[in-house]
Structure formats: structure tokens, C-alpha cells
């Protein structure tokens, strides 16, 4: 079970925000390959639904990886999608996570985004490995969470 402690969340957020600011992106997201949003930069410029975006991004990367395998089992390391106004750059980290940068093409460009990601990549990888290691060592869920008192009836109209 992957979990994020407040101090780890802070470190990730700070790193993603620095990367976002230096590359003049709209937002930088960190997603896991199963489609869960792990963290995001502190960026008000992005208004889409993060959760939905994370799910579609993971689906997109998974499909591209399958395509890549069809072409001879080549590993996929990064992807670039371009719309009329925006660029979406995705890069895989430790084969488990996807770092996504969305940028306005009038404000930034793929080259700057890639250079800045290169600057932060190793540190991000290191933080994620530390989080995984710490999460693995914790055998059970902390007592502060009591998920069994959830009332699903309140969800429906």
C-alpha cells in the first residue's frame, strides 16, 4: 500500500512547483501507472479535473507501452502530445510513475520542459524510492484512519 506522509507530500509538492515555475508550465502532475494522482505542483493555472486527467494519462501511457511492445518490445520512456495551444509531455519514472507537464506553447516549449525535468529527475526518483521504502516497512494502516464507519447511503440521491 503506497502512502504519503505530510512531510513527504510537502517535499514532492515543492519539487513539482519549482519544476513548474522554472519550466513556465501550467501544471506538473505526478501520477502512478494505475491512474492515481500522487501529487501536483501548486498551480492555479490549470482548471481541469486532476483525478480524471490522471486516469486518462495512465490509460494513454499504458496503451502506448502496449504499442511499443507490438513494435518489438521496446521500452517506452516518454511521450509528447500536442494540441493547438498546449503541449503535454509525459515521462516515466522508475517504471511506476508518470511525470506530466502541461504547458502553453506560447509561454514555454518542449526543450525547456525537458531540460528542467532532467534537472529534477534524479531527486524526484530518490524521493519516490524513499517513500516506497518507508511505506513498505509500515505493515498496517495507522489507527487514525477508521474507514469502516463510512456510510455509502449518503452518497445517493
Amino acid at each position, binding site marked *: 500500500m503506497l502512502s504519503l506522509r505530510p512531510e513527504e507530500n510537502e517535499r514532492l509538492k515543492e519539487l513539482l512547483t519549482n519544476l513548474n515555475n522554472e519550466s513556465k508550465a501550467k501544471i506538473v502532475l505526478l501520477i502512478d501507472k494505475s491512474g492515481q494522482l500522487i501529487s501536483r505542483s501548486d498551480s492555479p493555472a490549470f482548471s481541469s479535473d486532476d483525478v480524471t486527467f490522471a486516469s486518462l494519462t495512465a490509460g494513454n501511457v499504458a*496503451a502506448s507501452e502496449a504499442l511499443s511492445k507490438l513494435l518489438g518490445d521496446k521500452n517506452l520512456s516518454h511521450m509528447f502530445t500536442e494540441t493547438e495551444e498546449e503541449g503535454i509531455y509525459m515521462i516515466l519514472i522508475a517504471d511506476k510513475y508518470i511525470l506530466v507537464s502541461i504547458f502553453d506553447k506560447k509561454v514555454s516549449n518542449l526543450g525547456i520542459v525537458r531540460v528542467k525535468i532532467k534537472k529534477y529527475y534524479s531527486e524526484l526518483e530518490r524521493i519516490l524510492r524513499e517513500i516506497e521504502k518507508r511505506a513498505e516497512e509500515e505493515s498496517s494502516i495507522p489507527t487514525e484512519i477508521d*474507514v469502516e464507519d463510512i456510510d455509502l447511503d449518503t452518497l*445517493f440521491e
Partner: protein
Amino acid sequence: MPFINFATKEINCKIVYYGPGLSGKTTNIKWIYDHIKPENKGEMITLATETERTLFFDFVPIEVSNVRGFKVRFHLYTTPGQIIYQASRKLILKGVDGIVFVADSQEERHDANLDTLDDMLENLKDYEINIEEIPLVFQYNKRDLPNVLSVEKLRADLNRWGRPDFEAIATKGVGVLETFKEITRQVLKKIKS
């Protein structure tokens, strides 16, 4: 694999609706989406063909707040049922926390039920997920149609692990909520264990 963020007090879980083509997986999550309060749901994504068959997946995020200050978010996915999309089904199972197997009760679709269950077991094995340990619920859908198999027959052939199962008519919402509540209950219990 659930993801817990202690800073934002969020717990994220992934639930996948699995089953043969046209068994009613999308109908299940559409019914849930249509009946849930707007403040508890995100955007529904449907990646479908022109004939509304699921091409890649459907996705609905559902949020429940105020669980001792934590927000639980269930990510509901359906898989494409048609045989040709085997690769997509496998991709969507990645990181799954709970599975609803939606079977088609019609006699002529029973072979498809069995084939899809085999396909699911194979995919889970590849991800090293033990079927004995993962939250799992069976739903026997389309109970209103003629020529349906008995629940006893469906249970004996499909539900080999004695998991909770429900009869359903997803187009009318019969059994949909019960199925959803049972899988979420199992997933939350697993997180706690």
C-alpha cells in the same frame, strides 16, 4: 494498491467491473453515476466506439468525505468486454483493489462468461494478485430476460470462491447498488486489515 495521502487526508482505491461483452458493466457504473449526488462525483469518462461498445475503459471517480476527517475516493473502471481487447483489460487491472465480475445470465452467453473469467484469472496471475485475497463480488445480470440460467448454475460455474453474489437487472438499477456497496465494504475492510 490503495494510495493514502496523509497530508490531504485522502484514500484512493481502484475498483474494476470485469465481464464479457454486453454483460452490462457500463450500465452498472452509468446507473451509479446517474444516481449519486453531484458533490460526490467527478467527471465520467467513456471511451466508446460509435456503437457505444466500450473501446478502452469507462471511468467514474466517487468521493465520500467526513470519514473521521478522511476523504475516500473510489475510482470505478470498466473493461472492454469484447475478446479482441484482451490487452486493454489487462492494463486496466493494474493496481486494482477490488473486482466486480458482471456475468450475463443468458444461457447462450455462458461460454463467454467462462472464457472471460479465465481471462481475468490469467491477467491477475500475471500481476501476481491472488484471487483468494482480493475483494471480489459476482453479479448475475439480465435476470429479466428469457432463457436465463439458474442462479445455482451460475454460482457453481463462476463463483468458485464462495464470494458474495447478487442478481441484477442493471438497466433498471436492480442489484446495482447492492453490488457496489458490497465491493466497497470489502475494499475498505481489506485496507483496514
